[in-house]
């Protein structure tokens, strides 16, 4: 048996190739997604416009094409990429920190808190919450729910995986109940906006919307890449991790805070896009194995590609209408995921 033999679908040099292909694929997907819309712009022109904005020479551009590409489409496509990558990473963190395959940003109440904040802002019309804006209110709601989960789950300053899941589920249920109540009381005009927000959408995104998710993702990515090895240890057991010299309690608290802030930043900008944080990490593990040093980079890029493509589908499937992203993340993600899962079972046999 060669030394490099591995039970994972992709390993060794194949891993480098996979990351390169995915990164290249992300570039192509972004350029293509920017080009497609009510007015189609050829990929070559998209590249020209983006190039001009990055390296100078915008004067020579056609103003209309420039506006479509740079003002309308580029921010939304990049926001989709950021949201996909960010939610996938948050999912990896949460699944590892509670060692529960069902964990995702949805399960921990953070999304529910953000939704409640956003829905209050959307239905209140005026007042303090409306003053925060939808994104601000969503972020505040996410932080409040994180604080609630933390207080409920901790025992003497320590977090235990099971209590964390239960506290997260309880806070999420509470948040969803309040959100449902507000939905029932909303008038029909507000209701459509509420539904759209709850199912997630990157429609109408502008450059300022990118700031918070971009900063949050960048900071968390850098930090996470230094924690891959302790997270491997944590993913096989608390006692095992302690025996391998990992400060389990501190790591768990930091992971919870990091993944929650990341989720809050993303969800405030795009709404409640579900399923990405659950499915992308699992799909990635099925391909490269569970080692976080591989799972992180691949999840980041694969999540970005996935959401860029899903966003593309949401605005082309029923032109000129747009659909919420959340519908398609599940509709497209679930079958793909099940195929991968069946392959894994066969490989293990």
């Amino acid at each position: 048996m060669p030394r490099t033999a591995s039970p994972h679908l992709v390993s060794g040099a194949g891993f480098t190739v996979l990351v390169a292909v995915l990164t290249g694929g992300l570039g192509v997907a972004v350029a293509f997604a920017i080009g497609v819309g009510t007015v189609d712009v050829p990929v070559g022109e998209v590249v020209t416009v983006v190039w001009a904005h990055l390296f100078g020479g915008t004067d020579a551009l056609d103003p209309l094409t420039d506006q479509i590409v740079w003002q309308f489409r580029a921010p939304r496509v990049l926001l989709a990429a950021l949201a996909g990558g960010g939610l996938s990473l948050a999912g990896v963190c949460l699944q590892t920190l509670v060692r529960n395959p069902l964990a995702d940003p949805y399960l921990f109440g953070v999304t529910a808190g953000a939704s409640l904040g956003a829905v209050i802002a959307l239905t209140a019309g005026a007042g303090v919450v409306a003053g925060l804006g939808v994104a601000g209110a969503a972020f505040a709601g996410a932080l409040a729910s994180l604080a609630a989960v933390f207080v409920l789950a901790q025992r003497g300053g320590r977090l235990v995986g099971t209590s964390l899941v239960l506290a997260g589920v309880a806070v999420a249920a509470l948040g969803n109940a309040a959100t449902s109540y507000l939905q029932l009381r909303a008038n029909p005009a507000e209701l459509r906006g509420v539904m759209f927000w709850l199912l997630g959408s990157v429609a109408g995104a502008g450059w300022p919307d990118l700031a918070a998710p971009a900063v949050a993702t960048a900071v968390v990515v850098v930090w996470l890449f230094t924690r891959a090895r302790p997270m491997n240890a944590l993913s096989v057991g608390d006692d095992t991790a302690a025996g391998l010299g990992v400060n389990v309690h501190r790591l768990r608290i930091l992971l919870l805070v990091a993944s929650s802030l990341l989720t809050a930043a993303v969800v405030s900008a795009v709404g409640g896009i579900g399923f990405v944080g659950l499915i992308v990490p699992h799909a990635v593990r099925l391909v490269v194995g569970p080692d976080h040093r591989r799972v992180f980079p691949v999840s980041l890029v694969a999540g970005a590609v996935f959401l860029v493509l899903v966003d593309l589908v949401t605005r082309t499937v029923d032109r000129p209408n747009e659909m919420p992203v959340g519908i398609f993340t599940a509709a497209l993600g679930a079958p793909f995921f099940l195929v991968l899962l069946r392959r894994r079972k066969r490989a293990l046999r």
Partner: protein
Amino acid sequence: MRVVVDGVSVAIDDNPILNGVTLAVRSGGVTGLVGPNGSGKSTLLRCLYRALRPATGTVLIGPDEVWRSSARQVGRRVAVVTQDHDLDNDYSVRETVAMGRTPHQGLLDRESQADRDIARAALERVGMGWAGHRVFATLSGGERQRVLLARALTQQAPVLLLDEPTNHLDIGAQLELLELVRGLGLTTIAALHDLDHATAYCDQLVLLHRGRVIATGPPADVLSPDRVAAVFGVRGAIAPHPITGRPHFVTAPPA
């Protein structure tokens, strides 16, 4: 490396689990922790590898107190085979063993050739060199325990802790594992259920009962018939083994 436990008490939800446990383990040799279920064996081990902070008392591994050292420092001195290993993931055997280098690597260090060599040698040493490419969770129980032992060896720590390492193994795998541990020459502390194994493979026993140390010393002294009757509620005796002639612990139901 010496291990000294001094006055360690632990309570979980106001239930006292350990009550002023004091013991000293010399460098080298195998020490067995024995006692009935719930006597505090696993809890005591968890205090040694920094998974549980005692309410009172100190634990010295070598010269340093465990809770005054960083988790990483303790990870370089103490390696442990625990019972909590999650099987719901697809780590390969090689990846599982390589985790043993965790306390030696910096945050951004890549796995070096030296790390890989250490892991491979450990895997060979436990006789599992052929299994590097296998998924850990698909191995048999005995094979898994040997791989976890290899991971502990990969930590290159002078102290080895084993929490009921022979649980769920067939008798052949049990003896194989204990022979292997015995031959390593590390300062070893093992929680063991089987008093015959404890007699055959340990230099020293620590008998725990209701969170207290009842006796320490050579197996034949610790497992006196009176004490075994009082602690375990069975009759026990040490007799020469019919095959090997070495001391052998036999039990019978109470009279």
